[in-house]
């Protein structure tokens, strides 16, 4: 199993993501710097969380315009599995690889806590390790995770089963419309999510609910 992690200045959960992918695949992921346009053929490309370019201008706006993101977009068009977590999700939105926007949390405050996620569609490569309707634990840590899209886009996302994670049991931490925590592209090969599954993959994290996501995406047994 081969994976790649995109590196932009200001991302800061890259080390968490690299540790998680190493733990799960047994192999260190490739790292791809912002100026590189050549991404090797891998089974999963991840854009990790953080504050790329300090979140100045708009979260993810500058990162989305770096050369490496054109390469990621091209790979995605060819069907590669791409996953963006937190700032990575914001970058995927700004790059136009997923629809909608992430606004400031409704509380206007940064929030770091564990939430509950419902698996609303278990028929994607990313969620096949879970059961539909299953509730899992997952931490969040963000200032701008309040998902929003216009009515038409929402209808399409919901109708096509592209909302794959939803905040459950009243644990929506940011005011996201329809409790949306994660969505996929129409082809199902691009996932964007605010919560951090990479921080819940080993016993020392206090749980392993995030493991099945990576295992599913990589076609491994969880």
């Amino acid at each position, binding site marked *: 199993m081969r994976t790649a992690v995109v590196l932009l*200045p*200001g991302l*800061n*959960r890259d*080390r*968490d993501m690299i*540790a*998680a992918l190493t733990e799960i695949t047994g192999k260190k992921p490739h790292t791809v710097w912002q100026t590189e346009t050549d991404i090797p053929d891998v089974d999963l490309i991840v854009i990790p969380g*953080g*504050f790329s*370019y*300090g*979140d*100045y201008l708009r979260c993810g706006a500058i990162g989305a315009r770096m050369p490496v993101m054109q390469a990621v977009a091209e790979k995605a068009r060819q069907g590669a599995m791409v996953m963006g977590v937190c700032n990575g999700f914001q970058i995927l939105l700004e790059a136009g690889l997923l629809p909608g926007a992430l606004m400031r949390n409704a509380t206007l*405050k*940064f*929030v*770091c*806590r564990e939430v509950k996620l419902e698996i609303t569609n278990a028929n994607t490569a990313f969620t096949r390790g879970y059961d539909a309707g299953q509730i899992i634990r997952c*931490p969040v*840590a963000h*200032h701008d995770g309040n998902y929003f899209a216009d009515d038409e886009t929402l209808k399409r996302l919901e109708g096509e089963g592209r909302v794959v994670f939803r905040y459950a049991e009243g644990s929506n931490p940011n005011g996201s419309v329809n409790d949306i925590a994660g969505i996929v592209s129409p082809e199902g090969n691009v996932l964007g999510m605010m919560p*951090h599954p*990479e*921080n819940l993959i080993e016993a*020392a*994290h*206090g749980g392993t609910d995030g493991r099945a996501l990576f295992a599913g995406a990589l076609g491994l047994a969880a």
Partner: protein
Amino acid sequence: MTIPNAIPITDELIAAHGLKPDEYQRILDLIGREPSFTELGIFSAMWNEHCSYKSSKKWLRTLPTKGERVIHGPGENAGVVDIGDGDCVVFKMESHNHPSYIEPYQGAATGVGGILRDVFTMGARPVAAMNALRFGAPDHPKTKHLVAGVVSGVGGYGNAFGVPTVGGEVEFDASYNGNILVNAFAAGIAKTDSIFLSKAEGVGLPVVYLGAKTGRDGVGGATMASAEFDDQIDEKRPTVQVGDPFTEKCLLEACLELMASGAVIAIQDMGAAGLTCSAVEMGAKGDLGIELDLDKVPVREERMSAYEMMLSESQERMLMVLKPEMEKAAEAIFRKWGLDFAIVGKTTDDLRFRILHKGDEVANLPIKELGDEAPEYDRPWISPAAPDALPEGSAAETDIADALLKLLGSANHSSRRWVWEQYDTLIQGNSIQIPGGDAGVVRVEGHPTKALAFSSDVTPRYCEADPFEGGKQAVAECWRNLTATGALPLAATDNLNFGNPERPEIMGQFVRAIEGIGEACRALDFPIVSGNVSLYNETNGKGILPTPTIGGVGLITDRSRMARVAFAAEDEAILLVGAPAGWGTHLGQSAYLRDIHGRSEGPPPPVDLARERRVGDLVRKLIEDGIATACHDLSDGGLAVAVAEMAMASGIGATISEPGGNSAAASLFGEDQARYLLTVPKAQSDRLLTEHGQASDVTFQHIGTTGGRELKLGNARAIPVEELRRVHESWFPTYMDG
């Protein structure tokens, strides 16, 4: 030699630089001529209280700073302590009190930025942060605004930089109304064989400026931090720096990359008094002169004077001495991270600090004397009067359940979740205890079993009543909190916040607190390896409570044995360890007396350091041996609050027997020191009680059993754990958002 001076050096100008007439005379004697305006600024920056420790040095020297594991004690950017396997922990705590009162968001943010820089300047990657925050009375008109600004500033910087905030304190007291405290702690991990220091070596080597550009922000900040406040304090806002955590994160990565390349000879971050302090430090430590050409310094504002450039406290900047042959490779690393890289000077052999600007020499000073010849004061002090004994009947019996709920729902004892959920506590994936327990704990990355524990502690009301016992207690409580997770306390950093040292009664508090801290550190083998002194914390002549914050670090060798405060299971025995007969006796200066009876009286609880150590060592052993299933130290609010916290953390209730002997209030709310609560399976309990009866040197008393969904304290009304939680969790959000 003369240096042309466009600005006349008047008595007013000297006073505005915080220099006393005798201090100015010292400058004249030292250089044999009138200083230039730039030189006056440089002296002011080096000789203010914040940078020179002129009032405190004499007393700081009495603290124990050495130990088997101590690699570098005070005097470097941060303390360095060996944790085995070729690794060391690098840590320090520092105040940013004055700036945070003037501009809470940026003041707190740059406080965090500064302490992180101190840690990674030494070659360590930061792995944990804490913040000890003290605000005025909740009903003071500025308090809410300051809490909101400081908390979001701490989070705004630490979260974006990417360090987990794993602990800290938040306390309210009217004495901080005009002078809040923001004490930031950071710790990093490095290899013991690659620690970087500020001492320059070699003549004629390039002095390199790295990081962000220099602006006018923070000019005179260190001098401002060495003065009392008055009503015109808002006019000082331009002296507060502006933080950029994005640049700091890039600076961290670039510095670590550069250090790994072998190019760095010496490195010093630009903190207080920026370019001045860092350059003097590097030269003076290395017995070398430094020449700086300010025309080469990257600036972000036009027409900056030499004075402004030398005193700017713009953030996220570093000064280095590099191996000349590696200049190109070093520059490439900094360019990759989008940071400035400029050769701004060189080391010389003449021991002069020379500043060139637009073709003129604007300063030429003896470099060693700038630091070494700073005034040092043996300020007069008077020993604080011993507090009166607590009068009989000070604490009329109250309903125990009501008192507990009132304490748990009070400003100072309610949950701090509202605060720490705004901090990223999980980033780096190594946090195994986040705030809410006795100490924050992070795994040592790359090691299969080791972890580090962190705690920050002081009880200012104890220090006010008796600075000596209060100083001892701050150290003992920190040591106890680390021990309660199963960690072996290794060393500590101190952040000493006091009022105006020119007043003998304040100086007396300072001296006695240091004596207490020193005594406790020696008795507990807990050396002070770094620290910071913040004096003049007063407004309009009214000082804060003396607040010597102690930040401690402990080592857990097997993290699978780490203890938490949450009850682990139902039907386990609850043991009280280290307590006198009757469980608790001391109500003087207790939270109960203050918050239930509205009285701040009596002496604080004395700390018997030998007993502290005996009890703690045994508790740690029971945790390491896997016998204790949960552990919590007893502090504010005594036994009742501690057992309630264990119940709330787990959702499991408890039944505690009726205390005998003393008044129920003293048993349940007394704040006697060196006590812990443990839970153990019932089968273990009998054995422990037989071995450690009331006659043994570490007493064990079986006080109750875990189980159910209610907390029942003796004959008092049972309280559902859910109700405890509701009360405990509601004060902060109601206060801030309500």
